[in-house]
């Protein structure tokens, strides 16, 4: 490339631009710098909080640059596309010339090239040339992928090489990056990411999408048979477990427990344990204790309905269930909120916390009201996803690790062993080169020299 392209048209100009390593370095560093901003500025947050944090002017400026949803912004995607184009063009550009070198039938060896290498291993063998040639030829055939013997002015050259294919390693890495991005694209076009909360005993057949907040129907229904959360003695959570049943046309086809790290996969759709909570309950068992007589009455209450107080003292209306109730600034946990209307008195708001049954004693009323029990139900929070690109991405993962290994640790090694007669003996000169890791090659040559000098008939 390069010189001939400069004279040609715009296509060559663009091709030249896209095949430059300077572009690679620039895009990689720009992506790195942009990602730093993405981690410093909270993503997909609430506009009011942004304004409070950065002020009106910066808020508008950041909004203009899409910095609040940066990873999905046009310019960030443009950078990724540019990087992909760069990788593809670079690879095609270099592969077209490399291909012929890698898939050559008879590799070319030029003795003059080896002669230039300053470091050589020399020794003398106490066998005539013919025997040494036979012995080393057999050794080369075993230890190398390709070997050949050529006669020289003074004696013979034994050429051998291996690892020619490892020159392709870096293109395997490049291919893997393209696969990762393709897999990501497939996922974003044909996949979805949603969530759904299902109460114990309930069945749903639709989920809510995370990106758009729209509901999406499923081709089957999910029933939550049971949810359990267990804790360690320290109070840290130990396990979240949901028992789920998949229903197809109303018929149960599969029942399984899922926990974090062990999702359920059904017809290309993955169901993950993501969160849990308590469902607001409808009915509650209340107890009323008469302060003077000590009599205890039990009544069943239902949210939204007024019940008559014992001894005809008035009415009690259960308004709602509060998961995290507050009393004078203190969190007192789960509680029912109710309105008490005693005969001839104005309505009075009550809190009936689950954890503190004697809480209502503070009111110093004639009747102390507390929660004796209620039907508690959990709901399980499920992450529901479909990503047809995952297999492509995983293939990319495998290729990337393999490609990095080949690129960094394997090389194309070429050696030339020169044999020259010296009386009844043979003089041996071992020399070689590799396309990378020169220090390592030197060590390998010394090792090869040791091996060859110790070979016996």
């Amino acid at each position, binding site marked *: 490339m390069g010189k001939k392209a400069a004279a040609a048209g715009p296509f060559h100009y663009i091709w030249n631009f896209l095949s430059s390593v300077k572009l690679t370095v620039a895009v990689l560093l720009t992506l*790195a710098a942009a990602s730093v901003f993405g981690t410093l500025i909270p993503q997909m947050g609430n506009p009011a909080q942004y304004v409070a944090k950065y002020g009106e002017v910066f808020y508008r400026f950041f909004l203009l640059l899409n910095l609040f949803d940066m990873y999905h912004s046009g310019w960030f995607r443009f950078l990724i596309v540019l990087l992909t184009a760069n990788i593809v063009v670079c690879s095609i550009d270099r592969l077209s010339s490399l291909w012929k070198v890698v898939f050559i039938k008879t590799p070319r060896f030029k003795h003059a090239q080896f002669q230039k290498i300053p470091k050589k291993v020399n020794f003398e063998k106490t066998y005539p040339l013919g025997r040494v040639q036979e012995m080393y030829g057999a050794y080369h055939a075993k230890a190398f992928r390709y070997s050949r013997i050529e006669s020289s002015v003074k004696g013979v050259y034994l050429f051998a090489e291996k690892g020619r294919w490892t020159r392709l390693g870096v293109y395997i890495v490049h291919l893997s990056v393209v696969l990762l991005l393709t897999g990501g694209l497939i996922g974003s076009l044909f996949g979805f990411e949603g969530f759904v909360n299902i109460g114990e005993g309930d069945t749903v057949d639709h989920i809510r999408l995370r990106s758009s907040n729209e509901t999406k129907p499923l081709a089957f229904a999910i029933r939550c048979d049971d949810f359990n959360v267990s804790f360690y003695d320290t109070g840290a959570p130990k396990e979240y477990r949901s028992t789920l049943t998949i229903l197809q046309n109303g018929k149960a086809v599969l029942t399984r427990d899922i926990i974090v790290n062990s999702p359920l996969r059904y017809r290309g759709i993955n169901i993950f344990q993501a969160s849990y909570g308590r469902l607001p309950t409808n009915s509650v068992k209340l107890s009323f204790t008469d302060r003077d007589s000590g009599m205890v009455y039990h009544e069943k209450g239902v949210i939204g309905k007024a019940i008559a107080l014992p001894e005809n003292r008035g009415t009690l209306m259960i308004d709602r269930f509060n998961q995290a109730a507050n009393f004078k600034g203190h969190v007192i946990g789960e509680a029912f909120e109710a309105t008490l209307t005693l005969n001839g008195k104005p309505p009075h708001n009550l809190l009936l916390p689950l954890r503190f049954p004697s809480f209502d004693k503070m009111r110093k009323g004639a009747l102390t009201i507390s929660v004796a029990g209620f039907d508690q139900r959990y709901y399980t929070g499920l992450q529901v996803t479909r990503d047809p690109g995952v297999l492509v991405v995983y293939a990319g993962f495998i290729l990337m*690790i393999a490609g990095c290994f080949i690129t960094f640790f394997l090389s194309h090694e070429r050696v030339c062993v020169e044999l020259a007669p010296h009386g009844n003996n043979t003089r041996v000169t071992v020399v070689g080169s590799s396309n990378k890791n020169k220090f390592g090659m030197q060590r390998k040559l010394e090792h090869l020299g040791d091996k060859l000098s110790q070979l016996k008939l």
Partner: protein
Amino acid sequence: MTSSSILSVVTFVYGLAAFFYLSGWVFHKPLAGRMGTWVSFIGLAGNVAGIALRWAESYRMGIGHAPLSNLYESLVFFACMLTICCLVVEMRSGSRITSAFIAPLAFLAMAYASLSPNISDRIQPLIPALKSNWLIAHVITCFIGYAAFGVAFGLSIMYLFKQGQGDTDAGGLTARLPSRSVLDELAHRMVMFGFLFLTSGIITGAVWANSAWGRYWGWDPKETWSLITWFIYATLLHARMMRGWHGKRIAVLSIVGFMAVMFTYFGVNLLPGLHSYGAAG
């Protein structure tokens, strides 16, 4: 003796090794350098024993898991990997002076784990998100990568140090450092090694995330910072292999890369995200 007390002792053994290496270099005493190697081996044995004992202790407590689940345990493992890399480079380069720049890193990691009041050395049970076989693969690959980058960082500092003094300084401290070409080559090899493991670490993390959270990539700050680190080292490798960068510019990139590694490891805990179990506490 508990694992925590063994590991506290290892901190001081590593400190002693670093001291020997540094005095071997500064005062030109080969004996001190040799002492550094022996003390490092003793420290490493203690470090490995401490990790093994901690693993056994967790099973005795009935909450058995690999000791790779919080900041304390990761620092201990990091120090172990750094010491192994340090000794390997020492053998390969045939010079103990490289260790004078690497052994202190292992000491600092251990000292931070053992002495910081913010880091608890208690064995805690695994929370549900961490209960996965990917935990071991993910943490081990990441920290081998971090350690290799740490060694490359030490070598790059040496390179800049040597270059700053010039080659004419015949009798001085820098004259005893390995030649610039050897430092450059060693650092490059460590970066390649680290890059392979960082890549594997990100990939095992992605596969794990896909089985725990249902997505292999979510731009969580830790994920993003590991990618930033990956971009920086990818730049270094391309600049060197394709544009023939050598020496100072590569050394600077390697130092910047290790800063990104450190931020991925510690700094990200200051940002909100899903990897909070790696935080102090």
